C-alpha cells in the first residue's frame, strides 16, 4: 500500500495498537525546558518513578532566562527558582541539561537541530507548541502538555490518536524579498488559525524543496499557528548535508546506513492525503500581520481591513476587537504604521541565516529615532557564529541591542517586554493580545522586513529596498 511520509514514521513507531483507543508510540527524542517540566518531575517523584530513557532526553533553559549579561545573577527570584529546579531535576534524574552558562544553551528548537539531536524519521516531543519546528527534518514532532511530558519521561512513549493528513503544496520561485516567513504567513492566512486542526501537514513542492534547513524550520515552526498538530518536510540532500558533523548525529558508517534509510522517507507517488491545498510562491508578497492571530495577515502593500468586509458575524466581531486592541483604523495603509520597537529573535527566526539577512538591511544605516531595536540570537552557538562574522558590530553600530540567547520578547516571560501601547515589528510567531507584554501590539514579519522597519520606523516594502548595500 502506498504510504505518506507521516504514515511511514507512524508505522515504524507504533508500540501498541488496539481497536477503539489511541495508539502508543515510541518517542525518539524528548526535549525539556524550565517552564512546562517542574510539575512533571514532581509527579514522577510522588509516584517513585524514574526517567526511562534519560539518554534520549535533553534539557535547556530558554523561556524565562534574561538575555542580558550572564555573569550577573538572575534578578527575578521566581525565574531563578524555575531555572534552578530544572537543573536539580536533570541532575536527580540523569538528564543532559544545557544550562545558563553552557556554550550549547539556546532556544530548545534551535539547539535540537544544531546539535544533531533532531534527525529525520524520528518522533520528537517537547512541552512546547513550537516543537513542530523539528518536522523540517522529516520527523513527526509534536508539542505536548505537562501531563504528557510526565508520561514520556516515565515511559518514553506517548498515546496518540492518528491525525488526518493535509498536503500543502507550494510551487514556484518566491520573488526577491519574499522569505520562508512570508510563505508560512501566506499559508496560515489561507488556512485560518484553526484550518489545520486535527491534521499533520506535509509541505511539498519546489518552493519548499529549494529552501535551506533553517528556512524549512521557519515553515514547520509556524505550522501550529494554523492549528495543525505537526508539520513535516521530506528529508533530502539538503537535510543530510545539514546533519553532517553535528555533535549528537551519527557519523561514518552509521551515518551512511541512516541516510540509506532516510532516503526512503518520502510520500509514495500514489499515496493520498485527506486534503490538499496548493499555493504558488511566485505570486507571494512580503506579509505583515495587522490583528491578534497570525491568520490576520496581509500584503505589505495592503491595508488594514474593515470588520464590515467579513460576512461571518463572529469573524466580524473578532476583527473589530483585534483592531481595537491594535489601535488601528480600518483602511490604514500598512506601510504607514509607525513602530516603537523591533524584535529579531524567537524559535521562528533567530538562526544564523536570519541574522545574516537582517544585518544586510541595516549595514551602514541607523535605527530610526524613537525606535528601540533588539536582536536576540536563538542560541549561544548562533551568537558565536554571528560574532565570528562581525554581525554584532553591524547591529550595534546601527543602534540595535545585541543580546544573549533565549525566547526573550517572543513571549515576554523574562524582563524583555513591550510597555502598554507599544507597537512592535517582530520576527516571532504570535501576535496574541498581551503576548509580548500587557497592552503591547505585535506585528509579525520576516527578519528583513523587521530590520528595514527598524531603520525607517515604519513598515516598508522590502522588494523596493536596496538589499545589497
Amino acid at each position: 500500500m502506498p504510504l505518506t511520509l507521516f504514515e511511514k514514521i507512524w508505522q515504524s513507531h507504533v508500540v501498541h495498537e488496539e481497536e477503539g483507543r489511541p495508539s502508543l508510540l515510541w518517542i525518539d527524542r524528548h526535549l525539556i525546558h524550565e517552564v512546562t517540566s517542574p510539575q512533571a518531575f514532581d509527579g514522577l517523584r510522588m509516584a517513585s518513578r524514574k526517567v526511562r530513557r534519560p539518554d534520549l532526553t535533553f534539557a535547556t533553559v530558554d523561556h524565562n532566562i534574561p538575555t542580558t549579561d550572564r555573569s550577573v545573577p538572575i534578578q527575578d527570584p521566581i525565574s531563578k527558582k524555575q531555572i534552578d529546579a530544572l537543573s536539580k531535576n536533570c541532575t536527580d534524574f540523569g538528564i543532559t541539561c544545557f544550562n545558563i552558562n553552557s556554550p550549547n544553551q539556546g532556544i530548545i528548537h534551535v539547539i535540537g537541530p544544531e546539535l544533531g539531536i533532531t534527525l529525520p524519521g524520528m518522533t520528537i516531543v517537547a512541552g512546547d507548541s513550537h516543537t513542530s519546528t523539528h518536522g523540517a527534518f522529516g520527523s513527526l514532532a509534536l508539542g505536548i502538555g505537562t501531563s504528557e511530558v510526565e508520561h514520556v519521561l516515565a515511559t518514553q512513549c506517548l498515546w496518540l490518536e492518528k491525525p488526518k493528513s493535509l498536503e500543502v503544496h507550494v510551487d514556484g520561485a518566491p520573488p526577491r524579498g519574499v522569505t520562508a516567513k512570508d510563505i508560512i504567513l501566506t499559508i496560515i492566512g489561507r488556512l485560518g488559525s484553526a484550518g489545520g486542526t486535527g491534521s499533520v501537514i506535509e509541505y511539498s513542492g519546489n518552493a519548499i524543496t529549494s529552501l535551506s534547513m533553517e528556512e524549512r524550520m521557519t515553515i514547520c515552526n509556524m505550522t501550529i499557528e494554523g492549528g495543525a498538530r505537526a508539520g513535516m518536510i521530506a528529508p533530502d540532500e539538503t537535510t543530510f548535508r545539514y546533519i553532517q558533523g553535528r555533535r549528537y548525529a551519527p557519523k561514518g558508517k552509521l551515518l551512511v546506513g541512516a541516510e540509506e534509510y532516510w532516503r526512503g522517507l518520502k510520500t509514495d507517488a500514489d499515496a493520498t492525503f485527506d486534503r490538499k491545498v496548493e499555493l504558488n510562491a511566485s505570486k507571494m508578497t512580503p506579509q505583515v500581520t495587522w490583528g491578534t492571530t497570525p491568520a490576520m495577515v496581509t500584503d505589505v502593500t495592503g491595508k488594514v481591513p474593515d470588520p464590515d468586509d467579513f460576512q461571518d458575524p463572529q469573524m466580524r466581531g473578532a476583527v473589530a476587537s483585534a483592531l481595537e486592541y491594535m489601535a488601528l483604523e480600518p483602511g490604514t495603509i500598512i506601510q504607514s504604521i509607525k513602530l516603537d520597537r523591533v524584535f529579531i529573535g524567537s524559535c521562528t527566526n533567530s538562526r544564523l541565516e536570519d541574522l545574516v539577512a537582517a544585518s544586510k538591511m541595516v549595514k551602514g544605516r541607523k535605527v530610526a529615532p524613537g525606535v528601540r531595536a533588539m536582536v536576540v540570537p536563538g542560541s549561544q552557538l548562533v551568537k558565536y557564529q554571528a560574532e565570528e562574522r562581525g554581525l554584532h558590530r553591524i547591529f550595534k553600530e546601527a543602534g540595535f541591542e545585541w543580546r544573549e540567547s533565549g525566547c526573550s520578547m517572543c513571549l515576554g516571560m523574562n524582563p524583555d517586554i513591550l510597555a502598554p501601547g507599544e507597537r512592535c515589528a517582530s520576527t516571532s510567531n504570535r501576535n496574541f493580545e498581551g503576548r509580548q507584554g500587557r497592552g503591547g501590539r505585535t506585528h509579525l514579519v520576516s527578519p528583513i522586513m523587521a530590520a528595514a522597519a527598524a531603520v525607517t520606523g515604519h513598515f516598508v516594502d522590502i522588494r523596493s529596498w536596496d538589499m545589497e548595500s
Partner: protein
Amino acid sequence: MKPFNHHKGIVMPLDRVNVDTDQIVPKQFLKLVERTGFGQYLFYDWRFQADGCPNAEFVLNHPRYQGGAVLLTRGNFGCGSSREHAAWALLDYGFNVLIAPSYADIFYNNCFKNGILPVKLDGTTVNKLFQEVEGEEGYAVSTDLENQTIRKPDGKIINFEIDPYRKKCLLEGLDDISLTLQLEEKIRSHEGKLQPFQVIDVKRL
C-alpha cells in the same frame, strides 16, 4: 485524577472565537512550579485592569455569573501555547465542563488529563445556548457523561459526541502512566529493535 460523571453548574458565556492560552493564563504566571493555585490568574489581563482592580465589564466579574462552573465559548478555544497551566487554571477556578464548537488539539488533550470535560457542540446549538444563557439569570445545566447528555433548565436534552476511550478514562479517572506501564513487555520489545540512529552512543561523542 478524580473520576468524572455527573456535573451541574451555572453557565458562564465567553463570547469570543480563538481564545488562546496566553489569554487563559498570561505568561507572567507560568513561573510557579506547582499544579495548583492558577485559578486566581485565569483570564487575568481581561479580568483585571492594569492597576489590579477587577474589570467590571468582563464576564467573570459579572455578579450574575458568580459560581459559574460551565464555560460556554466559541471555536478554536485554547489555541496557541501548549501550557497545561491553562487547563489547571480553568479547573482551579471551578470550570469542570467546557462547551464550544471546537478546541485546539493540545489544549483538548490537556483537559482530559485533568478531569475537565470539553464538550463539542455544533455552532447553531452553541449560538442558541448563548442566547438562552444571556436571557436567564442563574442558567445552569446538568452534564451526564455516561449518557452523553446536557440537560437545560427547561428540561430539554442536548446530546453530545465523545471518543469512547476518552470517555472511559474520564469516567474512571484513569492514570495514563500506570496503564502504559502494563504494556512494559511491548515497550521493551520495541526498544530492542531501535535503529542505530535512534539511539545515542555516548562513547561515540
